[in-house]
């Protein structure tokens, strides 16, 4: 009943064959699959980490760009305001100058008108005076003497009255 013969060798051989078969057919594929999966998960995790870092970097970059854009926009606005203010000031200055010019021109005009009016008036006065004097004296005096008298009179008038006439 307990008899050991060559079967023991055959059984050892059988078992080794079975081990090799299972190793090749079942064990290796499962191990390879597990290995692949863990590698894939590791790879995915690494990639996610890299993506996250890249996203952060991009975000920081965007923020910086935005900041710069804001600064630049502010600068542009400031520039525009300055330009506008300058233009405004220049315009006001010009207007003032124009007003001044116009005023000056007007004053000159007035002065001229006044002088003209005075001249005219003086002529009228001379004529009237001559007429009046002629009538009063009843005779024509020598023309030269006449003019001198009149001019003296008028000059006195000029000095004492007309000079103070306000226009």
């Amino acid at each position, binding site marked *: 009943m307990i008899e050991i013969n060559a079967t*023991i060798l055959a*059984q050892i051989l059988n078992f080794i064959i079975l081990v090799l078969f*299972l190793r090749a057919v079942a064990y290796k594929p499962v191990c390879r*699959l597990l290995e692949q*999966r863990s590698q894939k998960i590791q790879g995915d995790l690494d990639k996610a980490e890299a993506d996250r870092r890249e996203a952060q970097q991009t975000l920081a970059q965007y923020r910086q760009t935005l900041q710069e854009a804001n600064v630049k926009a502010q600068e542009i606005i400031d520039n525009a305001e300055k330009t506008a203010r300058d233009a405004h000031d220049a315009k006001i200055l010009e207007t003032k100058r124009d007003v001044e010019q116009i005023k000056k021109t007007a004053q000159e005009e007035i002065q001229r008108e006044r002088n003209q009016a005075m001249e005219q008036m003086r002529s009228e006065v001379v004529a009237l005076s001559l007429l009046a004097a002629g009538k009063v004296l009843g005779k024509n005096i020598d023309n030269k003497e006449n003019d001198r008298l009149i001019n003296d009179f008028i000059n006195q008038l000029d000095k004492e009255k007309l000079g103070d006439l306000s226009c």
Partner: protein
Amino acid sequence: MHEIGVRETVRFLGLTFNIETLHMTWITMLIVAVIACLAVRNLQAVPRGWQNFIEMVVLWLHDQIDAMMGSRGRFLAPFIVTLFLFILTSNLLGLVPTMASPTNDLNTTLGLALLVIVMVHALGLYFKGTHYIAHFFQPVPVFVVINAIEEIAKPITLAFRLFGNILAGEILIIVLLKLMPIWMPIPSVLWLAFSIFIGGVQAVIFTMLSTAYLANAIKESNE
């Protein structure tokens, strides 16, 4: 399996073989191979159903091996799995009518036990070198006798435990069937159930002890 203890033998190349044991072994191998093929059929990157269980078993086994002998024992995982599946299937095969367990033949169990022990010593020498030989002479050289007895006892206990349990189970089934009338099947059914349990337990014991012996030879010596 009819007359207990008498085995049909064939002679081949001048050697004697127990032909029934060989046939049963081949059937067992076929069953194990088919189970393994079915188990790993259609493996997918995203595991589903049965594949989860297979992966769980493999990972559990790796954890056990890592704990017992460090990660350099990983290459033994298929050996251990096959040992368990082969012995379990063998044990259960004998419970099918007209079949016999390959493990009810001492040639099978002793063959497996010797294979394990040879592997233990070979791996011990390979991984630890002279240190492995030296540890038989510790703590004092006299201990080599005790150590030698222990090393010789290992394969014998492994082989005879399995052989005895399975053979006893099969013998008792036959005895019970002969003793009890056929309309009173309760004892033999109970014994059959118990034999299924024993078959599983013995497969676990054999595998666990083999693993422990292998672990002794492989694990780092700073214990």
